[in-house]
């Protein structure tokens, strides 16, 4: 009739707690990913390394500034016009090769940038722009579509050309004859 009569139960309990704790400790180490919960704050727990992985994704989109670093005259021409928010690539294409070459040429004087006329494919040069892409470059935005804001300059091509009495209706340069280039007039 002593108090310690049932100590076997205590030992069983203690063993379960200790073994469970040890197993749990190692299982936790095994299953929780590295850097998990490193950064805690007012947001939920997460794997801190995930942010660095997502941040490491290369940015391939080219900003206008990259073009304007060299083509400074374009910036002045375009400033204040309605086309100020239009990016270079919208009409000229992405020109990734051209920019890569230009960036290399900045560091190394011996590298020459291929003249625009000799580019093919990737970079829509001024020549390509007229011959291959022609007025579609304008019409992708300015051809009238149901849903466009009323104050946006939009045309129905045949109607517009007829109204303006254009001579060469099929000419790829037909838009630029009246509207100019970078300093587009309305």
């Amino acid at each position, binding site marked *: 009739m002593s108090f310690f009569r*049932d100590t076997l139960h205590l030992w069983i309990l203690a063993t379960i707690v200790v073994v469970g704790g040890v197993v749990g400790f190692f299982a936790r180490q095994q299953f929780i990913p590295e850097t998990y*919960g490193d950064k805690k*704050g007012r947001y939920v727990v997460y794997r801190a390394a*995930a942010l660095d992985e997502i941040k490491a994704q290369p940015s391939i*989109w080219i*900003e206008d500034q990259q073009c304007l670093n060299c083509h400074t005259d374009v910036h002045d021409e375009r400033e204040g016009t309605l086309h100020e928010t239009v*990016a270079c690539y919208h009409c000229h294409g992405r020109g990734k090769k051209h920019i890569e070459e230009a960036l290399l040429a900045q560091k190394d004087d011996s590298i020459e940038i291929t003249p625009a006329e000799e580019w093919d494919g990737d970079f829509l040069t001024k020549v390509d722009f007229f011959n291959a892409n022609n007025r579609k470059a304008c019409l992708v*935005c300015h*051809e009238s579509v149901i849903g*466009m804001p009323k104050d946006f300059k939009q045309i129905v091509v045949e109607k517009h050309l007829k109204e303006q009495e254009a001579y060469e209706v099929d000419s790829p340069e037909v838009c630029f004859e009246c509207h100019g280039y970078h300093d587009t007039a309305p």
Partner: protein
Amino acid sequence: MLDILNILSDQGGCQSGGCSSGGCGSSDALWSEGSSACGCSGGGPADLVAEDGAQLRRDFLKNASSIVLGSVTLTLLPGSLGAADKAAGATAASGDSEPLYGFLVDTDKCIGAGKCLTACREENNVPEGQARTWVERYIHFKDGNIQVDLVPEVGYTGEEPEIDPETVDKAYFVPKLCNHCADAPCNQVCPTHASITAPGGVELVDPDLCIGCAYCVQACPYGVRFINHETGNADKCTWCYHRITQDQTPACVEACPTGARLFGRLDDPNSEISQKIRSLPNSVLKEHLGTHPKLHYIGLNGEVV
């Protein structure tokens, strides 16, 4: 802790005498509050031995439970202390400098050119047939019908079915992308903590932890999530997290020819987006759901969901 156990055992046991040999330990007390299952035998001399045994059992259970509860608490303690420390540290470290990003779409400016769609696809390598952002066109006809269609990625090329402008009351474009809700439902259902809120309030998917169960796809009230066919993971608009953390704007904002998309910091009262949200009438999608989106719209019609 012992007090609690005492109260529990007192509730079940009889106050005047001991319990019958049937036993009425503290564990039973929880289930027999009305004492109907644990009757008292009146406290005669024959019960003394039984009472001794019951008392012993009760003491044993008391002590044993204290030890178990105590050890469990001790086991948990280091973890909980650590978490609290870290939380305090992070809050102190971040201070006021942590940005809070926001997005503003001006539906009055969108012309449906589709430049943002290509920009997003190329920047984030989104497979064909899936999209992180898209542009809807709402057409209200004069007969009361509303038609919603998607802007093709190359913009309207003139090959679409003709709609007679005479039958149309009004029409407008609505660019859609992730709302990056402050109380994101997608975040709450993720079973692996792969859906996370990154500093800046941006909702992201951890590609390593995501198991592609698509719970978040179903939870999102705005339908911006999808299972990427190529990676098998949940995919969504990240507001180009890799760009905005380097002080660039998202690719779609960069690509918009009319400036219909505006990205900026909501925590800075002088930023363009903060000023516009303050000064112009704007709304968010499905406000009644209480998700508190950080994507705001100017000129949004009531029919848009």
